[in-house]
């Protein structure tokens, strides 16, 4: 493991440097000439590869349409975001100006890290016609509290939900207090993935909002004093319930997939996901029982937007912009929204669409296990600045795990 890592580091360090052609000119051209420039090229899209269904959608629908509309070959490269961010940092350090990645699926602290290290290309979203036509720039102006400034293009939304099985739990908890009671009444049947896992970390923020009086106070940027004042409430809540968790809270599932497995096997009675249609997907996969359902707490359910971005050294920036633009189109958003394809929430403004398109979106049925759009949007609360996230994860390690 270590050796491979060093090898790749060293290779990256010793790799040659070269000049990137038409670097600036890409941002000066109008979209039509970008399309022409991109015709017949290959776009390598690096994205998280942990879901067979999402991979399938990219390989069939996205690749097929891009070929048909623009004669572009889309190559999907499965890679975790922290890994490609690392790769970019290494390439930047070695001044490698022609990389291998054209488009990235990125958000949250990975975006923040990339921006701080200056490894992204942009601003480019204002050059994309679909963005100006269908999107609300205000809604995607921040990614986990970090200003986007046109360096990433929104292409989907996700929201945090709890999953349960009506057979085992007829009535799910409705509020944070009821959730605590439920956990106490069912010792060993609840757990959450170990932060910094994405889902586990989201659960932590969910509890942070709910135990400290809501999200509004955190929306004005990072405030260390506020955190110091409020965080103890969160950790008191978690610490008090720790003995009632799976394995008495001594150990936690490593990631969301491990949590799903425990829930599917019946070792725990509640799971969670940052993807509202995830439970439905698992039912269709036959891993969850048909009686699985989802719920959100009255205190709110965090939502976030996920984005695509272009590395500073992308060899095919024009192609990457055409693909990012296509992913934002109403057709692609609708296809992605259908649960049999993915079930990912659309990022565009449905209100800006014409009547026929709007009806098509409204006709999408996300399945019995998924909450309706009204229930989800009623509970929706925005994400928090990553500084809070990092502190929560760090303190969870020392306060909850360390005792």
């Amino acid at each position, binding site marked *: 493991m270590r050796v491979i890592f*060093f090898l790749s*580091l*060293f290779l990256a*360090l010793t790799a040659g440097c070269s000049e990137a052609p038409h670097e600036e000119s890409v941002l000066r051209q109008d979209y039509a000439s970008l399309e022409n420039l991109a015709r017949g090229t290959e776009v390598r899209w690096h994205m998280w590869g942990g879901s067979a269904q999402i991979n399938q959608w990219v390989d069939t629908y996205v690749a097929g349409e891009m070929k048909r509309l623009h004669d572009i070959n889309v190559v999907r490269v499965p890679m975790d975001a*922290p890994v490609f961010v*690392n790769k970019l940092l290494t390439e930047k*350090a070695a001044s490698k100006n022609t990389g291998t990645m054209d488009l990235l699926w990125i958000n949250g602290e990975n975006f923040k890290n990339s921006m701080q290290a200056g490894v992204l290309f942009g601003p480019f979203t204002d050059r994309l016609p679909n963005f100006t036509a269908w999107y609300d720039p205000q809604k995607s102006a921040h990614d986990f509290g970090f200003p986007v400034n046109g360096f990433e293009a929104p292409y989907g939304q996700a929201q945090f939900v709890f999953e349960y099985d009506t057979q085992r739990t007829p009535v799910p908890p409705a509020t944070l207090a009821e959730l605590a009671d439920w956990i106490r009444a069912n010792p060993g049947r609840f757990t959450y993935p170990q932060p910094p896992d994405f889902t586990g970390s989201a659960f932590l923020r969910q509890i942070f909002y709910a135990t400290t009086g809501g999200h509004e106070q955190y929306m004005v940027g990072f405030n260390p004093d506020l955190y110091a004042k409020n965080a103890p409430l969160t950790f008191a809540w978690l610490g008090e319930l720790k003995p009632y968790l799976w394995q008495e809270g001594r150990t936690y599932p490593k990631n969301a997939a491990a949590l799903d497995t425990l829930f599917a096997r019946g070792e725990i009675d509640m799971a969670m996901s940052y993807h509202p249609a995830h439970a439905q997907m698992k039912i269709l996969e036959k891993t969850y029982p048909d009686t699985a359902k989802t719920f959100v707490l009255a205190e709110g359910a965090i939502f976030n937007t996920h984005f695509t971005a272009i590395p500073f050294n992308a060899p095919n920036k024009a192609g990457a912009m055409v693909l990012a633009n296509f992913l934002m189109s109403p057709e692609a958003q609708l296809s992605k929204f259908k649960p049999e394809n993915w079930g990912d929430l659309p990022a565009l403004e449905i209100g800006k669409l014409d009547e026929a398109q709007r009806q098509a979106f409204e006709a999408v049925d996300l399945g019995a296990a998924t909450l309706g759009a009204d229930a989800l949007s009623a509970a929706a609360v925005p994400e928090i600045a990553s500084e809070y996230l990092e502190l929560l994860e760090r303190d969870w*390690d*020392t306060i909850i795990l360390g005792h």
Partner: protein
Amino acid sequence: MKRGIIHGLLPLLLPYCALFCAGLALTLAQSLGLFLPLGSGEVSIEHYQTLIQDQGIRQSLGLSLSVAFFSATGSVLGGTVLALALWRMPPSLRRVGVVSKVGLILPHVAVAFLVLLLLSRTGLVASVLFQTGIISSPEEFPSILHTGSGLGMILAFLLKGVPFALLLIGAVLFGFDIRLIQTARMLGAGPLRTFRSVTLPRLLPAMHSAFIILFLYAFGSFDIPFVLGESHPGMLSIRVFDIFFQRDLSQRPQAMAILTLMFVFAALFAMLYNRFAAYLDGWRRKL
């Protein structure tokens, strides 16, 4: 002679050393705050100080050391006993030893998943016990994999380590001149005395090598801890991965500092262990 070997290996050694040393140098530099994607670019040892003061890291070190020690010791002892048992068998039965190859062939990750499938609370063993009515609910099955002691990892390392030690020690045993033992017996040594003064001294070098290799592998390995490790304290290798890939970039030097210390420890351990073994050997010969 020795020079000839080195000359012959040079084409291989050079790139290997270059890569290895470059990686090591970069790790050391980043642990001191140099060549970082973010940061002031000034040399500092604060990351080492943070590490030394961190309770969690100390606990992780303890776990890594104890898992490595128990799995290596168990593997060497188990391998030795099995090798001796095989050696005593009539040659026609020795083919049984092929079974041990299974553990050698399976990758570490596969062995880790085997242990997970068998011993988790919803695993095969628990299911069988539950179906046969020996336990009335899966909760009654002892929580072997999540005791916080690294027991699951030790079991997996043993499954890989015992066949490995058997291979090394068996190789020595099967090349053993049986007349040495016959001579000892003729001179009136009992079976125990024969083992202590004739067999064991010839096995010890192989046992020491097996111990060092297994100990250092388990100490730094990633695959088995990744599958079977627990949240707390967590092995050092998992902590490095966690800091490197899942935390803020500003924490990266800490990961590099842990790696540097692990490397230094491994090098020191191998050196000291060899000295210790040689000293023991000399001391035994004096008796």
